[in-house]
């Protein structure tokens, strides 16, 4: 782990192909998360960092050009600032708790309760999911709304053009034949990816996974489709209005669950009352809001991807 992190730092010195190296960097940090026992986080980081955000950055590069011009300012001043700040931070860490010590302050407050009680109280083995969806349901709802807002922001900045008019010569010219092998492969893989996304979505209670990861996986299937068959086909498959409606629907499912539990006489997002006994209620609640999260994340990612690519195509 340590050596690999050091390599990740070396990577930063390269000026060209930064984005591609950023993909590697994400994979590396996801590996570090695996080593540090954070399986769910590794899942998300791999999906988001190595998959989706690399694709977004690439799409941006297409429309902005990929050469970086040398800065006119001397790099010495920022370097100095960085070194001084870093030194101050290192000095600060001398008082920090030691790595892996079970007596760390973070481990003595509510975490114990999560670890000890959640398997019986919420009744699902994956503590990350139970903390995410049940104990800290408000936080997660806030995050979902942030993501939804991001989609709104991106869509208001960049419009998705339903039918990109690709110039004729690009589609028929000898240099832009589609990759037949790739298309066959994509056709084989996409159903598998979709099934896998559903598995991750609904198996999230028992193993690593959950709405966030499943949403990204689902989106990545659509992204693969758009990459191999062209944007127009993908937009035909998942129309823009569907993205808008479903993204809002996901947030509504989440919020609606809270309202339902209020109507049944409990606090907002308290799932105990959703079924006859609390553990079942928790199960239903988590399943439903994870579904909401999954729908929102998937549609938001697809929407942002469409917006980026249609902008990139339109800029030519």
């Amino acid at each position, binding site marked *: 782990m340590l050596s690999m992190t050091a390599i990740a730092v070396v990577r930063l010195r390269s000026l060209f192909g930064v984005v591609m190296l950023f993909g590697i960097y994400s994979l590396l940090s996801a590996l570090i998360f695996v080593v540090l*026992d954070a399986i769910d*986080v590794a899942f998300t980081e791999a999906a988001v960092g190595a998959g989706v*955000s690399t694709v977004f950055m690439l799409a941006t590069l297409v429309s902005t050009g990929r050469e970086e011009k040398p800065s*006119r300012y001397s790099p010495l001043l920022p370097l100095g600032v960085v070194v001084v700040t870093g030194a101050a931070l290192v000095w600060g860490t001398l008082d920090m708790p030691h790595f892996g010590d079970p007596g760390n302050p973070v481990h003595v407050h509510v975490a114990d309760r999560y670890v000890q009680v959640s398997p019986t109280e919420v009744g699902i083995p994956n503590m990350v999911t139970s903390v995410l969806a049940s104990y800290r349901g408000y936080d997660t709802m806030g995050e979902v709304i942030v993501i939804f807002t991001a989609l709104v922001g991106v869509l208001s900045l*960049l419009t998705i053009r339903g039918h990109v008019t690709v110039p004729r010569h690009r589609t028929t010219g000898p240099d832009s034949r589609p990759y037949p092998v790739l298309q066959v492969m994509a056709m084989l893989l996409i159903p598998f990816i979709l099934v896998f996304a559903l598995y991750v979505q609904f198996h999230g209670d028992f193993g690593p996974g959950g709405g966030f990861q499943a949403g990204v996986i689902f989106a990545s299937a659509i992204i693969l489709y758009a990459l191999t068959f062209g944007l127009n086909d993908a937009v035909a498959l998942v129309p823009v209005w569907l993205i808008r409606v479903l993204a809002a629907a996901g947030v509504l499912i989440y919020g609606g669950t809270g309202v339902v539990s209020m109507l049944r006489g409990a606090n907002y997002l308290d799932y105990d009352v959703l079924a006859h006994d609390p553990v079942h209620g928790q199960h239903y609640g988590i399943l439903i809001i994870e579904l909401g999260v999954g729908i929102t994340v998937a549609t938001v990612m697809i929407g942002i991807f469409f917006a980026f690519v249609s902008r990139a195509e339109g800029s030519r």
Partner: protein
Amino acid sequence: MVFSLFNYWVVIVLMMAGFYTVIASGNLVKKIVGLNIFQTSVFIMYISVGKVIGGTAPIVAANTELYSNPLPHVLILTAIVVGVATTALGLSLIMRIRQAYGTVEESEILDISTREDEAG
């Protein structure tokens, strides 16, 4: 004992690398990459704080007693997804900037806008 603080130093090195990229690079896309690296360093810090030596992933399994702390995992899980959403927003702003100014270099944008101010 010094070695047991190593994780923080790794985090700091990453953080400073991201910070340096943000302030020293004039290219807006590069700045976003720098921000992402900075962000990742914070993620690693949270997760490494949550690690318990001898513990295992916080999913209940037979014959394991000690688990790592699930709370940082949850915080970072959502933070990553929010991070990509904000990254996407930033990138789309960059695309608009490129459309408005024809460049994504900070210094050139400043030149153009000062020229416009003088002209207008």
